[in-house]
């Protein structure tokens, strides 16, 4: 049941990415192109997303558990450290290079986009490299 729900939620997430236009790296790069063909769409994607997700998170955190009383797995860290900043900067550079972040890349893989497959493979390698150095 939980697995079926996860599949459906992933489907909704992916469809949201497709409708929003963020599954298209060209569009993402235009958002990031402040001094050129700036397209502010991503702001509206974030506004739409956060306006709805804040309802879900507020409700869940208020309950302290899921709707059927199972635990919440929420990140507990509150500190701002160098890895947070360095990691985010490195991620941002990668994002600015190809216009892909993890979610849209997966959706593009689902569309059979070859470069998306390459990106995801490289992403998995990058993640594996992190795990090796940090566990």
């Amino acid at each position, binding site marked *: 049941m939980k697995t079926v729900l996860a599949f459906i939620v992933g489907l909704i997430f992916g469809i949201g990415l497709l409708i929003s236009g963020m599954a298209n790296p060209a569009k993402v790069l235009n958002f990031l*192109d402040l001094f050129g063909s700036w397209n502010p769409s991503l702001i509206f994607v974030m506004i739409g997303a956060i306006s709805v997700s804040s309802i879900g998170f507020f409700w869940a955190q208020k309950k302290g558990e899921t709707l059927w009383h199972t635990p919440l797995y929420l990140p507990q860290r509150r500190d701002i450290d160098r890895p947070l*900043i360095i990691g985010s900067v490195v991620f941002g550079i*990668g994002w600015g290079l190809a216009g892909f972040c993890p979610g849209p890349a997966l959706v593009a893989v689902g569309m059979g986009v070859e470069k998306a497959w390459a990106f995801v493979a490289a992403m998995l*390698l990058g993640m594996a490299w992190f795990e090796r150095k940090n566990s």
Partner: protein
Amino acid sequence: MNVTTETLSALSGGMLIGLAASLLILLLGRVAGISGIVSFLWQRKKGDIAWRVAFISGMLAAPMVYAWFTVPPKVEVQASWPVVLLAGVLVGWGTRYGAGCTSGHGVCGLARLSLRSLVAVAAFMGAGFITVALIRHGVGL
């Protein structure tokens, strides 16, 4: 596509993303941070895999389901193959070291009013802006 339809699509698509994140936390108790969900492949924790595989499968199936109803959008990857590979490694490593990505820190972290996520979002947005500025208007790559 004119500005209004584009803005509406961005907003409605975003709201669906937010809905998915809300459902994931309310029903499965999990944060919809794609980098975190995917990175499990390299972690050795057992018994935590099924929902992740299902979620990722749903994302992979989305274009197919979308195509039942309407023409899927164009996906245009302008970066060259070497750049795509480099980008992938940077995103893979960076999202782990930085503990999140646009969905984890952006959609979920900001919704939770996390200062940590706000800093992360500022960092990756800034890096993204500067990278594109350098590529498109500075160094020719």
